[in-house]
């Protein structure tokens, strides 16, 4: 090797590599001194969270904070994972638009636009499930998105659930030949799912083909349990129909909203079906459908008591955040820790994103909120909101 080449190699080791290491150190964020609600390993008082890039690196009490790390002092504050709203219409363009009674291949990501300066984000909500509107029987794929970043970056799971509407919602928007009764709806669903199964078995080794196949392929994902069914159902009979249907085709099922879910809590618990409990105001406003008659703010508490896993949602595009719903559920019988879990880890599990969200653990996304007072109390107020390791809001 020539002397010059040796020189270059030596200089490289002296300057370039250390510079890179220093750069990595600058991307470390340390939050210390707060009461950390990890949701996975209990509450850690005066703990430290180390974040590197967009991921949580470590959580503990005696952690060495690397030199050059950016420090956030959370003394006297509460730290929780970013809050998750398990069912919203956030960012959905042309809200409520419906073209077909059965449109399983539609995806909300194709109509999603990130909102700027979201009040939910400022208030500590970092990720939501965006649902197709319930006016189709089979409405398509809902997605899990973060409230920060353009569509490509914000969407963390494009096909996170298939929307299905039992009950009145779809029946109110009839098209030609659409069923007029509940048994008609179930009949039609069965036809579609059987067709999809046949299609799946026939085309096992072929990639996608005509448009009709795309609709059937979408249902195929549900049949193979790759995507859960998010079934909106309020009346006890609608919920039992959902259970029966899911059992028949061996589907993964979640009950959405479920005004009367507390009336069949035992069935749900036995079948291990989670419920995304609808907002407390559901059915109380102008012209709420009769099928929500059984709704009570005690719904989440009663379900939890029976052993059903619950998440909480607003079912709205904007307005009051899921934290207020959590507060209301808490004041009506859902224990505080369960209520916090319902808007963090349990929600993440129901949405199928628990590998990334919902708790403060090494390896998960660095989505965190620092609070003055408990987030589910009247005076809870977010002070700092962090998404993907970056501070996106500071009060």
């Amino acid at each position: 090797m020539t002397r010059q080449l040796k020189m270059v190699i030596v200089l490289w080791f002296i300057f370039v590599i250390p510079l890179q290491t220093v750069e990595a150190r600058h991307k470390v964020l340390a939050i210390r001194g707060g009461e950390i609600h990890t949701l996975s390993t209990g509450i850690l008082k005066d703990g430290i969270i180390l974040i590197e890039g967009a991921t949580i690196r470590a959580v503990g009490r005696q952690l060495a904070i690397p030199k050059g790390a950016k420090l956030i002092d959370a003394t006297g504050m509460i730290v929780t994972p970013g809050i998750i709203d398990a069912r919203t219409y956030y960012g959905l363009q042309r809200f409520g638009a419906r073209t077909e009674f059965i449109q399983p291949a539609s995806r909300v990501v194709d109509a999603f636009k990130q909102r700027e300066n979201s009040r939910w984000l400022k208030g500590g909500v970092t990720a939501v499930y965006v649902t197709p509107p319930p006016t189709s029987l089979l409405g398509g794929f809902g997605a899990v998105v973060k409230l920060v970043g353009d569509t490509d970056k914000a969407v963390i799971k494009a096909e996170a659930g298939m929307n299905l509407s039992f009950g009145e919602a779809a029946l109110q928007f009839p098209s030609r030949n659409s069923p007029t009764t509940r048994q008609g709806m179930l009949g039609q669903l069965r036809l579609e799912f059987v067709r999809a199964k046949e299609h799946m078995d026939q085309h096992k080794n072929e990639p996608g083909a005509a448009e009709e196949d795309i609709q059937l392929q979408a249902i195929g994902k549900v049949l193979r349990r790759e995507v859960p069914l998010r079934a909106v159902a309020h009346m006890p009979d609608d919920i039992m129909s959902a259970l029966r249907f899911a059992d028949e085709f061996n589907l993964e099922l979640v009950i959405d909203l479920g005004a009367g879910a507390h009336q069949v809590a035992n069935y749900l618990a036995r079948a291990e079906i989670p419920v995304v409990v609808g907002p407390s105001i559901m059915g109380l406003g102008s012209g709420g459908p009769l099928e929500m008659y059984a709704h009570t703010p005690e719904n989440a508490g009663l379900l939890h008591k029976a052993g059903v896993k619950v998440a909480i949602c607003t079912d709205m595009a904007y307005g009051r955040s899921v934290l207020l719903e959590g507060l209301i559920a808490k004041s009506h019988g859902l224990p505080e820790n369960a209520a916090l879990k319902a808007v963090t880890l349990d929600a993440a599990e129901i949405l199928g994103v628990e590998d990334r969200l919902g708790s403060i653990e090494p390896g998960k996304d660095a989505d965190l909120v620092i609070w003055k007072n408990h987030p589910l109390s009247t005076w809870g107020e977010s002070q700092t909101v962090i998404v993907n390791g970056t501070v996106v809001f500071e009060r």
Partner: protein
Amino acid sequence: MVNKLVLIYFVKGGLPSVQTREKINVKATIWILSGICVVVFLCVNLSGSREKVLAVTNAHIYPISQDEIPAGILLLKGTKILAVGKNLTIPQGAEVIDANGKHVMPGIVESHSHMGQKQLWQGPVTHSNNNELSDPVNAHCLAIDGLNTHDIAFPMALEAGVTTMNIIPGSRSPNSGQAVVVKLRGGSAEELFFAHGGMKFAIRATERRPNFPKSIEEVGELLRVKLKEAQEYMAAIEQHGSVTPAGRTPARNLKLEALSKVVTREWFVGVHATTAKEMSIAMDLQKEFNLDLYIIHGYGVTVHAEELAKRSIPISYGPVFPIMGRENDALDGAVRFAKQGGRLSIHQDHPDGHQYYIRHAAALFVRRGMPVHEALEALTINPAELLRIKDRVGSLEAGKDADFLILNGPPIEMESLVEQVFIEGKEVYNRRTRHNVFNSN
């Protein structure tokens, strides 16, 4: 002998003649008359003390008219409050409720609601009785004539702690009619009736009907014209003793009669106005006719806060829940208005909002900087003053109606639940026993 006395004294009238007097045993008469007096005296007093005295002790009381009393006593007799304080003597025989540290506040007065008019679950059979749309002016129509007090929303309102409510016609026409103030004591409209709720105007032009104004400016103009007609109507009656010159049959105009009461300030008037522009039009009407006017919704208060406070024009603000959350800075204008002495009331505008969360709405204001006692005033004494029923409700003071709530925590905390509701001394709701006066026959 007594019969003779009665006959003489009461039938013939006056004292009997000397001869008759000699026949009557005067001593016995005096005894009998005294006996009657004693019996009457006893009857009056016994029935008087049959009026129940109730003492709520060991309570954290929010009288509103004075500072909070952390360990206080609320004394009531019959339908009225006897006293509120710290070291009160509890009369013998009084029923005592030990509140055990629970929180007591006056029953909530809601200044704006459509409960019973827009019924909670309307199918194809019933429709909204909220908006009369045959004509833009319906001053002669009464909210009480389109009111179903058996709507399921009423028991829910009690659970929320609302005891007095102003039920008001809708906003789709410039003048939708007269409101009615009710107390939620169960029964039909007559039993609930409490006071006249004033007139309703709306600066809003969303109705696409041929005889309706097409813009909010036209609405303002229509109302101005109608109020002027009402003035002329009154002047004509004063001048001629009737509407038309002598000789012609007076034509009673019920609409103008009703509007006259607004012009003379016999009735107050609530004006729906959401944007700053709509509020401007309402404020101009107030000035021109010197109306006793309050603004409904008032989201544009951000712009007009100072002027409204200075002119003592109250605002009934809402609905806040469910649309607004904890981060909504839109409430800041209302907070500023109240800070400058403006009288703010908070309403939920059932069914667009829901009074189940009326205290939550108040808490949202406190989060934006309003002092807690101001927020509680916005639920009680301010709407009472607005509705001209301040002498009866809105605070816990001697002589006022015994309408109060017992909560399991501070009323401003959203987590707190209303456990018991009393109206005029009678328990109308109990969370533990599920007793609700609207659900019993």
